[in-house]
């Protein structure tokens, strides 16, 4: 419906606008190893990867270097926030219905510069600066989505999106269902969250734990420039509302990503480091703490398998299950709080589905149930540190 734009500076789409009932992402790139599962016509979003999964052969260090991309073409290097912007820009070029709204996203370029330069390129209407009312601009995005646009809502900080909870849960998640399928809401809600460097309690929220029960939404968390761009593109192309969790401290990660276009799957986990002794499940910033602990563990003779679950709702139980069946021990490392976090749900899901394969109870390392303090030393100890991960693995593996 929103096919004609009146604002200035719209570049013509370089690809044909696909029929958006076609679910499979349109660009399998042959030189790139298959990162997503082959999608059959009967789309099964949780089955996960059936075949052709490239194994990552070397341990990934804190600087996430994607060996797959290094193996094929040089690609180009960029920071995570630039990767997000690149994904966003490619989607805005591809589909004129994609638009961005949020506070200071326009000429200011966004508080983390994810939308920098987009307002100049696409105009004020497509990259819309809104007044300060999160519930309102999220509601506005929902209304626009119901009438044919594909909006992306940027929360300046994920914590502020708590003010938009009503619109996200009651409307974003529910209107497709309660309208009997008449109205779809293909929105993306994204923003930085997680514990930063001394930002105080209200700027250090982990909203994935609050949103996880909302029926009708999908949640993904990016952790590297590669998956940030891929997940951003997948989220925009999805017909469902997707919440994309970014982390404040990861925006300046640098990585070499492919030049070719790629889209990742929203429901798949990422195998970061295959191993034999223990399955470590993590996501977002904790991935880096885990990989740091992994270095120490390898030196001590352990062989941890590290999986970045990426998809927080729904969980990729296929990948996780295969790992559990191999190692029989699970350690979950998350930044959420102990009570009611993603780790708590994941523990329940694994126990329910793979109880027979477990040799030991699942260990879940999470933040304490406290508001994040401002003092740097205190803040450091609210999140899980590599030393704790090493100790937990040692205890788990004996």
């Amino acid at each position: 419906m929103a096919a004609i734009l009146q604002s200035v500076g719209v570049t013509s789409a370089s690809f044909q606008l696909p029929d958006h009932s076609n679910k499979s992402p349109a660009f399998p790139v042959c030189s790139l190893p298959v990162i997503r599962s082959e999608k059959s016509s009967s789309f099964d979003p949780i089955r996960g990867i059936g075949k052709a999964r490239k194994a990552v052969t070397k341990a990934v260090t804190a600087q996430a270097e994607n060996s797959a991309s290094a193996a094929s073409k040089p690609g180009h290097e960029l920071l995570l926030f630039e990767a997000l912007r690149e994904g966003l820009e490619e989607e805005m070029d591809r589909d004129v219905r994609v638009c961005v709204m949020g506070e200071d996203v326009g000429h200011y370029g966004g508080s983390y510069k994810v939308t920098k330069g987009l307002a100049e390129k696409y105009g004020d209407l497509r990259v819309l600066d809104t007044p300060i009312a999160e519930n309102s601009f999220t509601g506005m995005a929902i209304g626009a989505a119901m009438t044919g646009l594909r909006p992306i809502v940027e929360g300046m900080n994920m914590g502020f999106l708590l003010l938009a909870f009503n619109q996200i849960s009651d409307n974003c998640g529910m209107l497709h269902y309660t309208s009997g399928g008449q109205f779809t809401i293909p929105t993306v809600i994204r923003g930085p969250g997680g514990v930063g460097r001394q930002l105080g309690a209200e700027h250090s929220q982990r909203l994935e734990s609050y949103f996880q029960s909302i029926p009708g939404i999908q949640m993904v968390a990016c952790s590297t420039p590669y998956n940030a761009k891929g997940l951003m593109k997948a989220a925009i192309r999805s017909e469902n509302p997707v919440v994309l969790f970014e982390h404040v401290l990861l925006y300046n990660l640098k990585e070499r990503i492919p030049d070719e276009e790629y889209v990742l799957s929203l429901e798949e986990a990422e195998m970061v480091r295959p191993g034999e002794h223990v399955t470590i499940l993590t996501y977002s910033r904790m991935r880096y703490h885990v990989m740091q602990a992994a270095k120490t563990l390898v030196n001590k003779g352990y062989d941890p398998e590290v999986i970045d679950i990426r998809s927080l709702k729904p969980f990729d139980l296929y990948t996780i299950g295969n790992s559990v069946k191999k190692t029989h021990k699970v350690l979950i490392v998350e930044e959420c709080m102990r009570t009611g976090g993603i780790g708590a749900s994941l523990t329940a899901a694994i126990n329910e589905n793979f109880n027979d394969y477990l040799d030991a109870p699942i260990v879940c390392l999470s933040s304490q149930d406290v508001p994040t303090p401002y003092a740097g030393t205190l803040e450091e100890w609210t999140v899980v540190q590599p030393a704790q991960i090493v100790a937990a693995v040692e205890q788990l593996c004996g």
Partner: protein
Amino acid sequence: MAAALLRRSRAITNLVRTTATVSLSDQFTALQFHRYRRYRRSPAATGDFAGKPYGLCNEPPFASRRFESAAAGQPIVAETDEDDDGSDRQGVEFPGGRVPFTPQMRFIPESSNDRVPCYRVLDDDGYPIEGGLYEEVDKEIAVRMYRSMVTLQTMDTILYEAQRQGRISFYMTAGGEEAVNIGTAAALSSDDIVLPQYREAGILLWRGYTLQEFANQCFGTKNDPGKGRQMPIHYGSKDHNYITVSSPLTTQLPQAVGVAYSLKMDGKNACAVAFVGDGATSEGDFHAALNFAAVMDAPVLFVCRNNGWAISTPLSEQFRSDGVVVKGQAYGIPSIRVDGNDALAVHATVHAAREMVVREQKPILIEAMTYRVGHHSTSDDSTKYRSPDEIEQWRTSRSPVTRFRKFVERNGWWSHDEETELRASTRKQVLKAIQTADKMEKPSLEDLFTDVYDQVPENLQEQEKAVRDAVRRHPQEFPTDVPL
């Protein structure tokens, strides 16, 4: 230097004379004379609105006034404003524009002395008021409006009774607000996207939603377009450009701004029309949405049905302002108060407002004054908090349906026989629709799990399987009118 600048300015000299006790340097820092621009009327506002008379004077009722800031960094030029009547006014530059200043400390009172008048064209007996200006409706539209009002009233009465009999779980009537419903519906185009609160079923009725479809939704049958997922009266129909009702109040208002934004991007000759009750204007989203709409020049028509009661909360306990109409100006939105029980006035106002919204691409707020004759819903007994006499008076002598009937009858467009026939046949049709819906199958079990996402994900497939297993094992516990 200060003295030289001061000499050039008559204004400052005047000021210095009148406030001699304040030092010159204080004066100078207080007054920053930059180049200024006046507030001006938008050129579009002075045009002709298709030759139709609006309001009580020939001046266009809508003038866009935006206070413009002067550019910062301009050389200090001591100037004074000349007001329209030629007197001098002095102003101060602040972010947001030039503000005239005054040495008199004066608080703006919480309300003006007189309340904002409401626009009406028919008196209580349905006679056109002398000197009133309104867009005339022809016989066809007027009769159709009247028939719809009667149909709405009949449907409400019978479905309310159906709830009382236990046949549906819940119902809300639009009793007393038929004129707001139908008057608005008749004035909009079918392309205008409606975001209802919950008492606007008349608009769906006008747009062609059948009595059977209403009954299907209330009974939650398999033919309900909403697939039995929402509670009664939470209608929604994409074909009729009527967004599904969502229970929490005012969630539809920011969404209306989004819908308008989408229409604006498309350049469509259509607007978003969002409804809100008097009570709901206390919600934060109402204020945020009005502000958004104004800032973004979104083509939204906000219609507030001020029916006096928010369940048991009367207006005096809801807000302290003069109703809702005065809030428009606070957000920079033109607004009007209309007699919501005067179908012609509502029709004329909404039609004019809609044209302005689409042409100017700016929001407008309409406050329709009316009365909620029925209870808030079937879960309410309003005699607990208001007198039955008050209700009776509004139901009979101040009924909008009766008032409009007198008007159409006097014009020779309607007769007593047609009245009897309409009421009887509508009643029969509604009863038939109810009976059909009552006997109809419910949506199938698989519809419990579809549309949560675009495709049914694996976890929900598992959950469906678990339910089916349970049904297979205990078929007698499972209702018989739900197909598997």
